[in-house]
């Protein structure tokens, strides 16, 4: 991995990102509207390298690992590309076209969040800074 020391680092960063995103009213509403169980699968970088976001039922819950329920959407990619993606440095359409991101299930809900990626990236960079990983921020 180019950005991460081991498989625990990205999951720590991404879970913290989502927990902070939940504090933002606009993003929280946006996430609730997704109304799906999404598994972010980075297991190509380690068996425990994944987390899920459960936006069903008007709540947003974030946890490490694979969900026990069948996910509505699985996004499989490398932890490095996930880092680029949350940093808003990866064109998701291009990444899907080039098979850097493999998607299973309906991406309709996530599509609604795409315009908010800029805002997510700001929160993500703050998260990295607060975790002491300023060096991971992509300029």
């Amino acid at each position: 991995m180019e950005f991460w020391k081991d498989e625990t680092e990205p999951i720590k960063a991404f879970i913290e990102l989502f927990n902070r995103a939940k504090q933002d009213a606009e993003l929280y509403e946006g996430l609730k509207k997704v109304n799906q169980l999404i598994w972010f699968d980075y297991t190509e970088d380690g068996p425990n390298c994944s987390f899920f976001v459960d936006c069903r039922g008007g709540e947003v819950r974030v946890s490490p690992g694979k969900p026990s329920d069948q996910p509505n959407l699985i996004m499989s990619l490398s932890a490095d590309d996930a880092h680029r993606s949350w940093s808003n440095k990866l064109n998701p359409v291009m990444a899907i076209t080039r098979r850097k991101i493999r998607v299973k299930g309906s991406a309709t809900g996530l599509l609604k969040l795409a315009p908010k990626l800029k805002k997510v990236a700001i929160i993500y960079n703050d998260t990295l800074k607060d975790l002491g990983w300023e060096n991971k921020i992509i300029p």
Partner: protein
Amino acid sequence: MKGSTGHFLYVDLSDGLTNSFCPPIDYYSRFIGGSGFAARLFVERGNFEADPLDPEALLTFSLGPFAGLNLSGASRFSAAACSPLTGHWADSSCGGNFAPELKFAGFDGILVSGKAKKPSVLVISDHTAKIETYPELWGLGVEKATATLKQKFGKASKTLVIGPAGENLVKFACIMNDGHSAFGRTGLGAVMGSKGLKAIVVRAKDRNFLAEDPMACRKLVSELNSRIKESVTLSVMRENGTAANLEGGVHLGDVPIRNFTSNFWEEMAEALTGSTLSEKYLKRRANCDFCSVACKRIVEITQGPFAIPKGPGPEYETIVSFGSLIGSMDLAATCKAGRICNDLGMDTISSGATIAWALEAFENGDIGVKECDGIQLKWGDINTIIDHILPSIAYKKGNLGSLLSDGSVAAAKKIGPSSQDYNVQAKGLEAPMHDPRGGGHGLALTYAVSHRGACHVSSPMLFMEMGACYYPEVGFDYELDPLSSENKAESAVLAMALGALENSACLCQFADREISIPEWVALFNSVAGFNWDIHDMIKAGRRIFYLQRLMNHRYGLRAEDDKISSRLLTPAVDGAPAGIVIEFEKMRTKFYNLMDLNPETGIPSRKTLVDYNLEIEADIILKG
């Protein structure tokens, strides 16, 4: 030769005669079908001097080799003629169900000439055709005319019908297939209307499709269909239609607002986007023949001023044309406006764009209540548009109907030079609902160099800029930045060839994105037996691009006509692209160099014409 029938139908409405003919066999591998084939047939049989609405004008419907093949996205076909709207060579593409049926009935296309003495219908069944006079259909809307035809010729028959706008020679009249799919652009419905041809009906008994290599074809089609069905992009489109990403487009600055004066309107994004349409009005999804994408919508609005019964719903272009472009974010109204346009038989893009021009003209004082028959035009006043303006255009009623029925470019010429400043077009064709300032700077270039004018489906440039294309086999591995001119000329060179291929093979630009370049070649080879390699295929696409340029040269277009309205080159005032300049001339100059186009005439050198085996066509076209 497989994939095609080898037969075209020729119809002379003046004499009431129909006969079939076999085009030279080399046309199939050189010009493929659809847009390219229609162009070549026009060079052979058309008259460049004929007015588009004269009986002598030739209207062609042309299938691709894949019509009738059980492949998602393969059921499109082309209509082509000299456009009454733009005055030069044009074509339009339509999905639906007519193309496979025509192929099964034994024809690769139809050429229509002459003018019927009485309103007529062309009726095609297995290898035969006849012209029937049918005056009682004249004057009917598309919906009723289609229903009447289905009653007479059977529910399973497929129809092409014009509405009152086509009959009245509105220059952006369209041709509707079974009341839902459209040959929308460039006014070919008026050409059909000028011939007194209200409809074409086709019915076939056999449903055989013969491929050159059936085993290889079956295997490839099966793989492609599975991939298309599972594609994340296309599943989003299945779920929420072609407007699925309208919201994203607003944030990119791609979606035009109030006649392209703004590139951002946040509240509108959610109000008009595809998921909102699904939640509020969608009754079911519909598809072109054999297509699993099912991006078409069937909607119903049960109450309110825009109530409409269950039927065809709007796609992206219609939603924006009658939504943000005219300053409205009323989704129900776009459904109704689209339904009315379909019934009147008018292109929703040019209708919305021409009305948007009129709204701005009124705001600027270039037209007043007198020109508008006492009506005050206001941004967002969709009620007036639906109740008064659309019918006035279709029936050329009053001052406003007369003014707008020839399109926004002609209207601005009548009103005066200041109103031309806010015509948004290229080569006389109103721009579609993608603003190159936000959607991608390369789109500005392809709008300008497209043979038919401002057109987002003349090439896959829009998809290339959004990142949905990856063709390393032909050198397209760029990671394009939409808001830059970098690598856009190079990309446009490939885009125009691919666009010509898609529009000639009559493949859908959505489904196509899941097909790689080697798979395109394999499709052509296994179906039509072209025995191509990648180079041969790209060469065929570029040959068609050059042919259509030669034809437009004959119609008087020159390099200076490869331009777009100044509004689209003026930096956006808001949204993501605010303040960014499109380096249009730089891209255009480079494109001209790469394509060996003469900077004055706009056509390629003799050497290039010879390289692309176009010397015979060039001699015929240029000698006049």
